[in-house]
């Protein structure tokens, strides 16, 4: 099955394999992490977090699709189910984070995270 793991879509008889998806997810994760660390705007950080969550869902789906749990009775559909719950968690996270941002904005007049450093020593 190594073919399937390492398939990059060049052989038309074999679909794109696990590693391709994991690679894409890793790229998304890195980009999300960069957004989180580099952006000053808190909404930018939120965008980064969304990218990271998407990377995680892609991983879940890829492992479900190629990892054999699809045919195993107990794990059937576990990938989409986790995906659904993750999307739901992301929605919660976005709602609360945005509420916090608005609250920050009311209190500090800005959402530039570098300007908010009350916790500094």
């Amino acid at each position: 099955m190594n073919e399937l793991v390492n398939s990059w879509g060049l052989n038309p008889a074999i679909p794109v394999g696990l590693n391709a998806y994991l690679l894409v997810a890793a790229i998304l994760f890195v980009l999300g992490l960069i957004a989180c660390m580099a952006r000053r705007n808190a909404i930018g950080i939120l965008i980064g977090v969304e990218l990271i969550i998407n990377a995680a869902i892609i991983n879940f789906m890829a492992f479900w699709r190629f990892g054999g749990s699809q045919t195993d009775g107990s794990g059937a559909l576990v990938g989409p189910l986790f995906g659904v719950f993750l999307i739901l968690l992301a929605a919660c996270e976005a709602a609360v984070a945005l509420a916090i941002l608005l609250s920050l904005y009311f209190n500090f007049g800005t959402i530039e995270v570098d300007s908010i450093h009350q916790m500094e020593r």
Partner: protein
Amino acid sequence: MSNELINAAGQNWVGANLAFWFITAVVVGSATMAAFARNIVQAAYALFFTLLGVAGYFALLGSSFLAITQVVIYVGGILVLLMFGVLLTNRPLQERTHGELGRYLIAAIAGAVLLGGVLVRVVFSTPWKMAPAPAVPVPETAAIGRMLVGNYLLPLELAGMLLLLCLLGAAYLVRRQER
């Protein structure tokens, strides 16, 4: 379409593989924009395409249900929420006072890329446990529905509870405060 392109199960993956690379191009490109765009509004628009692309991945991976969910909730809900956040908090005057990408940019890129390297190394060096054969995608929406009110009833209820609490918490956080 020649015979070599069709595998034993009668499945032809050419279209799917082409779609994968197309989507990858879109996703990586737009995600890069989302991470590096100077204007936060641009970044949000770029995120829109990233999310759509990820929905495409889900379809390719055999779950049209999750793809639709991704589009509806992520694109339709979360992204709109982000846009609202941008609109509510954006002060054009402040925008240009500092660069949007702060002084940690180089350090952030370096750290993240190194971490990505670690990830890639792990991905390629792990002997993944694989299914005997790639499963053929099947219609799964009804099955998901049944599982959500069956084996996964408790998580479903907890998720509902969580959503309710988030709603309350968000409303509490942004209530009109006495200064």
